């Protein structure tokens, strides 16, 4: 028996979380029990080999801090301007998963997008929420998913009814508080039959520096793509340098639905992110184009899952990692194809570029292919910049630093191509910033 330290147990659900219908309260209580009764994962366990689970435990007394960095106001103003110019359908500011401010474009009517707080949606869209919430990320998913499931205060609900195309992206800004804060944001997206939407999910803020009091953000994302739907989900993690991030993302693609997932990560001190798509209907397709660029002493631990639950489904992952200084990254990518899921195609590629000697990357492809009637490939590389490429560019007069920048920019280009116009300038800026002092 593992004895649990009382300090890291979730106490009684606080009164402010005791609202909403009984089924929701029951879920919270069950999640709390799951968390409290499950041991802290052992380091040798699958998915915990690379990151200390103790990083994501919160003290009983840990407060939710609502003090935010003032300089995020710039981002908010810029996105509000995008919204005003008609380049966004909606812009949502989510402070610590508590205070959620929704700004919708005048051009978008509520028969195309329904976007609200999760606490409102529990009442106003009871059936949809009841059917989907907790069905992909819940108390059984894992200890820290149980933590979010018990403690989320408020979340974001996005519902696109059948047959609607949302032309411009919906941008979410999830802001974390400063030192000692703990937040449990939650997102539920339901995309109706033959509907289309792009969602940009941006995580910012958190502790500025690494210390014993680093902020924790434990986020849960559930996405449902109904028959023939097309969903693009861009996750941009650009938290401050002392932030700890735990993200559980799961999506379901029904028949002929396509889901594009673009995980991008530049920030945080310790960042453990888990992106997974289940292909649930024939013709469903999932593509993931990931990029992380770490520096300093950042630690990244990314897991992706492509689960082919039925046949005639396709998946493709291309996850790119660039590291410098003493940053480190572990990538584990699981492709699971069920025995009954014949005629599937699944591809996985993970390339790691190390810009100096002090950084470290690991890559582990995991294939669970239970039938032979599939086309499947995977590839992984870890290495420094190719000196021949550097020489080639130098031979044309380009100095070593610019040559390096050029090669790295080329390396990440394929991923950046997937980024919607709203982020077209922003993302290369993050890359450029990392490349400033090489």
């Amino acid at each position, binding site marked *: 028996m593992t004895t649990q330290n009382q300090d890291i147990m979730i106490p009684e659900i606080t009164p402010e979380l005791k609202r909403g219908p009984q089924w929701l309260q029951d879920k919270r209580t069950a999640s709390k029990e799951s968390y409290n009764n499950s041991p802290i994962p052992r380091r040798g366990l699958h998915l915990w080999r690379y990151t200390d689970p103790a990083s994501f435990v919160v003290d009983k007394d840990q407060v939710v801090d609502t003090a935010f960095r003032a300089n995020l106001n710039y981002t908010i103003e810029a996105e509000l301007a995008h919204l005003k110019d008609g380049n966004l359908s909606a812009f949502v500011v989510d402070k610590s998963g508590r205070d959620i401010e929704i700004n919708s474009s005048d051009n978008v009517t509520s028969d195309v997008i329904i976007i609200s707080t999760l606490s409102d949606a529990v009442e106003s869209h009871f059936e949809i929420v009841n059917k989907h919430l907790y069905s992909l990320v819940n108390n059984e998913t894992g200890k820290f998913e149980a933590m979010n499931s018990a403690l989320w205060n408020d979340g974001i609900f996005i519902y696109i009814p059948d047959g609607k195309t949302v032309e411009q992206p919906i941008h979410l800004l999830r802001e974390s508080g400063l030192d000692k804060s703990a937040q449990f944001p939650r997102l539920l997206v339901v995309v109706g039959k033959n509907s289309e939407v792009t969602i940009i999910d941006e995580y910012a803020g958190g502790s500025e520096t690494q210390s014993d009091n680093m902020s924790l953000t434990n986020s849960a994302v559930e996405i449902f793509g109904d028959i023939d739907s097309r969903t693009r989900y861009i996750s941009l993690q650009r938290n401050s340098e002392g932030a700890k991030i735990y993200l559980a993302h799961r999506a379901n693609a029904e028949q002929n639905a396509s889901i594009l997932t673009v995980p991008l990560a530049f920030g945080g001190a310790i960042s453990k992110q888990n992106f997974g798509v289940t292909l649930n209907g024939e013709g469903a397709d999932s593509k993931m184009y990931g990029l992380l660029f770490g520096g300093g002493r950042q630690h990244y631990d990314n897991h992706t899952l492509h689960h082919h639950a039925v046949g005639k489904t396709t998946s493709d992952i291309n996850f790119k990692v660039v590291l410098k200084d003493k940053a480190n990254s572990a990538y584990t990518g699981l492709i699971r194809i069920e025995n009954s899921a014949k005629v599937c195609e699944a591809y996985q590629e993970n390339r790691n570029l190390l810009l100096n000697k002090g950084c470290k990357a690991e890559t582990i492809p995991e294939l669970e292919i239970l039938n032979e009637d599939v086309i499947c490939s995977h590839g992984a590389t870890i290495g420094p910049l190719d000196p021949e490429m550097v020489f080639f560019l130098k031979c044309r007069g*380009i100095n070593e630093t610019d040559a390096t920048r*050029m090669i790295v920019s080329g390396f990440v*280009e394929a991923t950046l191509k997937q980024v919607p116009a709203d982020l077209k300038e922003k993302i290369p800026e993050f890359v450029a910033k990392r490349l400033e002092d090489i």
Partner: protein
Amino acid sequence: MSDKKPILEFKDIHVEVEGKEVVKGVSMTINPGEIHAIMGKNGSGKSSLSNALMGHPSYTITKGEAYLKGESILDMEADERSRAGLFLAFQYPLAIPGVTVANFMRAALKSHRGADADMSDFRKLFKAAMTDLSVDQSFATRYINDGFSGGEKKRIEVLQMSMLNPAMALLDETDSGVDIDAIKIVSEGINRYQSENNGVLMVTHYQRLLNYVKPDKVHVMMDGKFVLTGGPELALKLEESGYEWLNEEKTGV
């Protein structure tokens, strides 16, 4: 010595790769307007020489001197040699995924002109260079050498040369892996570039390219040394008789 300063001059160059000496003391003087060719079998050291002259970090020059327009280049990095006017067209041009030909070419030209240079003429120059070398305009937005055929790669190399307009061009096996139509286009490009003010050094196994670009001097390289130097007729003799007679001659001496 003629009164004009040589474009490229090197003396007693020795080159080591991974501790093994592959070039064993070679010298050459290329005056403005001259086209030279180095011919030799695979492994004779001719590619090692051109890579070493360009400053490839794996090719160490252990002894000798090299001057570009009278200026010593051996302490320069490759990018400095390029900006000083030296150019190397690669035998196997490398693919750089994600970097478009246009962006690369712009950066290269900018590095030659200086950081604050006006680049407003770039698009026009680039388009003209592409037309000259029968390169489809769509190549501007393709990634450098990524999925290019052998001929396309070599044409893009010559395009880079024509835009940077170097004082001295080293062309390493520019005729290898190329069909006859591409050879014509590539050699026309070389002839357009070539002038009374610059120098060309072609490194080649075969005499094929030399039908189109006429060398003033041919140097035959064997086992890291120049064993014979002559006029264009030497290239023809090598084409007819191969390199074996040289072996006999050499061992005979």
